């Protein structure tokens, strides 16, 4: 809840600062002179400042709640308790006066091995205790273990820091809280603060450092580039095979009623089947090696490309075909000079969709079973609780997916400049 409030606050504050204060002097171009902008989609242009602030805010939030060293300390959300704290417990044995003893707890970072400090036993039948507990963890402290009278002989804890306590109840003490377990043993839970535990969300610099390590040392016998390269290789090969079969199939469906009749039911049935649903079958048939993945991606791309090519052919204006016939073109020339160029924009749109689907499918397939690949990397890392590798992997998968789409758009602008101009 707190992170959401902070996020909304930054959003609103940035909005007012940027639009009301900084951007007073906007250039007087045509759009800025439009008086009707609400409802005019063409007048809505992404605010560059908003984009930059948005990305910075994500990293800021990430840093705030992970205690990132990239941020000055005063920006950090309250961290977990670290250091030494004490609380007293009151032990009671029937027929004797209750006795107090002190428990000294050292709360240490998870990756620093720490011994419980030595303490004087003190007087009375209840002796002083000590314990070492890692941050974000809890520890049962067997306070009766060193007492003169054991738990079995009726030694019970009745109060913490003088407050009465019964099994299941909690007393807040300095640096944490003590809960009495069902069996009457105090369980110390250090204060967690507002920050995320690195196990759940490592800080940005930790992810960065880990990325450097993986880049240098590799992960599971393969370098980072090999992992990503394998994923990309599968996508490219699967997509190319899918396009090589799907495009001619789509053309045939667009040009011949026999092909249309024969393949329509198959294509229309396979189109809504998510490629992910084919993973089990492909693994049964082709195993978890390269062949299986490429078959899966081939199937993912095939139907999309076939449908794109088919609609590219059906989308040709009949007057263009008629004109070409009247100019003396043969069937083959109509195909080469009219139908194929006319369908290219549709095919490019299909290719963009297919590449996106293939990239998602390859990661999913690698999550299930693979020796190498981006998906395998994050799945294996998650089994070993290497959250930093998982986050790094997700970021890289996103960046590559975005890169593929940008590349396809660039190729589209270059190769089919007539798109949408017909």
């Amino acid at each position, binding site marked *: 809840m707190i992170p959401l409030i902070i996020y909304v606050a930054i959003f609103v504050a940035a909005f007012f600062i940027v639009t009301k204060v900084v951007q007073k002097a906007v250039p007087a171009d045509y759009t800025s002179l439009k008086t009707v902008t609400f409802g005019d989609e063409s007048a809505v242009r992404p605010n560059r400042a908003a984009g930059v602030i948005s990305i910075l805010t994500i990293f800021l939030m990430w840093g705030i709640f992970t205690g990132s060293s990239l941020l000055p300390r005063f920006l950090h959300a309250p961290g977990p308790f670290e250091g030494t704290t004490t609380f007293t417990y009151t032990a009671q044995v029937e027929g004797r006066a209750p006795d107090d003893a002190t428990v000294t707890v050292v709360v240490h970072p998870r990756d620093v091995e720490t011994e419980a400090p030595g303490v004087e036993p003190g007087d009375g039948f209840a002796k002083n205790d000590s314990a070492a507990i890692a941050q974000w963890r809890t520890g049962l402290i067997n306070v009766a273990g060193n007492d003169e009278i054991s738990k079995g002989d009726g030694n019970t804890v009745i109060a913490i820091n003088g407050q009465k306590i019964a099994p299941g109840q909690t007393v807040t003490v300095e640096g944490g809280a003590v809960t009495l377990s069902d069996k009457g043993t105090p369980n110390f839970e250090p204060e967690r603060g507002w920050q995320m535990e690195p196990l759940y969300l490592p800080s940005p610099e930790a992810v960065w450092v880990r990325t450097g390590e993986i880049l240098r040392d590799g992960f599971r016998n393969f370098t980072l580039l090999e992992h990503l390269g394998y994923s990309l290789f599968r996508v490219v090969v699967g997509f190319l095979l899918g396009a090589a079969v799907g495009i001619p199939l789509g053309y045939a469906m667009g040009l011949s009623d026999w092909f249309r009749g024969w393949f329509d039911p198959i294509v229309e049935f396979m189109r809504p089947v998510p490629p992910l649903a084919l993973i089990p079958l492909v693994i049964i048939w082709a195993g978890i090696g390269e062949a299986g993945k490429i078959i899966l991606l081939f199937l993912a791309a095939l139907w999309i490309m076939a449908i794109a090519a088919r609609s590219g052919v059906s989308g040709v204006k009949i007057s263009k075909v008629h*004109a*070409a016939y*009247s*100019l003396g*073109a043969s069937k083959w020339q109509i195909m080469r000079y009219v139908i194929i160029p006319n369908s*290219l924009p549709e095919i490019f749109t299909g290719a963009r969709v297919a590449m996106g689907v293939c990239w998602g499918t390859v990661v999913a397939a690698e999550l299930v079973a693979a020796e190498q690949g981006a998906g395998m990397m994050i799945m294996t890392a998650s089994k070993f609780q290497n959250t930093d590798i998982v986050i790094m992997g997700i970021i890289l998968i996103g960046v590559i997916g975005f890169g593929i789409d940008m590349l396809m758009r660039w190729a589209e602008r270059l190769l089919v400049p007539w798109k949408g101009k*017909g």
Partner: protein
Amino acid sequence: MTGLSIKNLSMRFELPGGDHVQALQDVSLDLKAGELLSVLGPSGCGKTTLLNIVAGFLAPTSGELILNGHKIKGPDAERGMVFQQGALFEWMSVRENVAFGPSMKGTPKKDKDATVNHLLDVVGLQDFKEKAVYELSGGMQQRVALARCLANDPDVILMDEPLGALDALTREKMQSLVLKLWKETGKTIILITHSVEEALLLGERLIVMAPRPGRIHKEYRLPFAELGVNADLREVKKHPEFGPRREEILNMIWDMEEEIMGGKEDAA
């Protein structure tokens, strides 16, 4: 013999449910080489069907078409077509569009370039040669379409409302261009239009078609096209015969439209 001869042409479309449409009934027409015929008529009178049959895109249910002594069986380079709009190949430059016909025939590059250059001069698009066609205005695009058709040197040019989508001023300029090209090239031209003025100005002969069934209702021989070759079209419109003819044809088409509307109401 040269010329186009249409004999007892009928076209009947079967509709699902046993109904049918008699798009054309017993249409006969003889066109000498070099004649310019404009075709008028209310929507649904079968004028586009007639043009598609002459182009060879449709086979008639009965009747035959003879061009220069042989039967028309399908589309052919001897019959060029100019469409209303959107029939240019937007993946080709202006030059490539005009060169399309010769390229398909495998004309040597030198001859092809000469033809294209000449035609681009004729339609006044020499400066736009390497532009993409979608960068051109509607009027310029239709000039490209005309040049593309002429580059193939067809015997007959079929025009399906080629100027229908243009604004009034551009349209007037294009009408003069069509007349000029007709006179210079001596092609047989069939022009379909919705505009009575255009049909009068451009039609050496003019036929008015009537719907249900589609048939030739009335035929005129007009002097205006010949006059318009050398004069401003606005002058031609001042010709004493022009106004009365326009009124006559407008009333004729108006009555046909009324009849269709009335028929519909009776059916309902």
